[in-house]
């Protein structure tokens, strides 16, 4: 099992969630976060903004769904064909165990 953490533009959140749901990945956790990336924030007329609002999506998936999940996020979180600074990042880490609380069953 893998935990996919995707940091995307907040205005792309609804679209990405809808497309993930259509592809069968309905489960997700969403957090509003602020942060900056490699470009050290945005500089507008001399003022640097380095706490840029983003949406953090967290999804637990099976190993074999990784490529499909990444492909979907890349496709729908991008702002244009070639992409733009600030479109976000995807991080993937491994999950050793997962439990569903209502049933207590150790599975996704």
């Amino acid at each position, binding site marked *: *099992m893998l*935990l996919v953490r995707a940091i995307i533009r907040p205005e792309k959140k609804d679209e990405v969630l809808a497309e993930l749901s259509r592809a069968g990945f*309905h489960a997700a956790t*969403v957090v509003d976060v602020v942060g900056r990336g490699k470009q050290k924030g945005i500089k507008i007329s001399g003022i640097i903004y380095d706490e840029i609002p983003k949406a953090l999506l967290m999804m637990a998936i099976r190993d074999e769904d990784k490529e499909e999940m990444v492909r979907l996020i890349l496709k729908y979180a991008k702002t244009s064909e070639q992409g733009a600074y600030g479109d976000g990042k995807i991080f993937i880490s491994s999950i050793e165990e997962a439990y569903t*609380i*209502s049933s207590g069953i150790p599975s996704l």
Partner: protein
Amino acid sequence: MKEIIAIVRMNKTGATKKALVEAGVAGFTAFKVEGRGKIVSNPTLILERKKELLLMAGEDQTGEAEKLITDFLVGTSLFPRRLFTILAHDEDVAKIVEAIIQANKTCNNVGDGKIFVLPVMDAIRVRTGETGESAV
């Protein structure tokens, strides 16, 4: 070292905190999140929950409430939840997971949350600079 991520109901925050103290771990980080789970396709389960939720609505707003609850249950909306992250020694993981499950189980069958256990490479205590197991 393991990181335990538990997503639980908002109104179970207190019970979860108490269960963690009883399991021997007091330290945790928690924050508000929104999310959704698997699509619930069992119609009797949906009907049951709908009836329960409608009972909570005031008498003067049944029409409005019914629409709201129906939208709520078809699965497009995000539900508020509390996310706990807990750092633990390998041997304590089973005990903590069991404690969280016991504290958060309800008879609703759905929506009680999920627990994930992730490996952690290293931990550092800022105050003393010590690393590894002793920093947990």
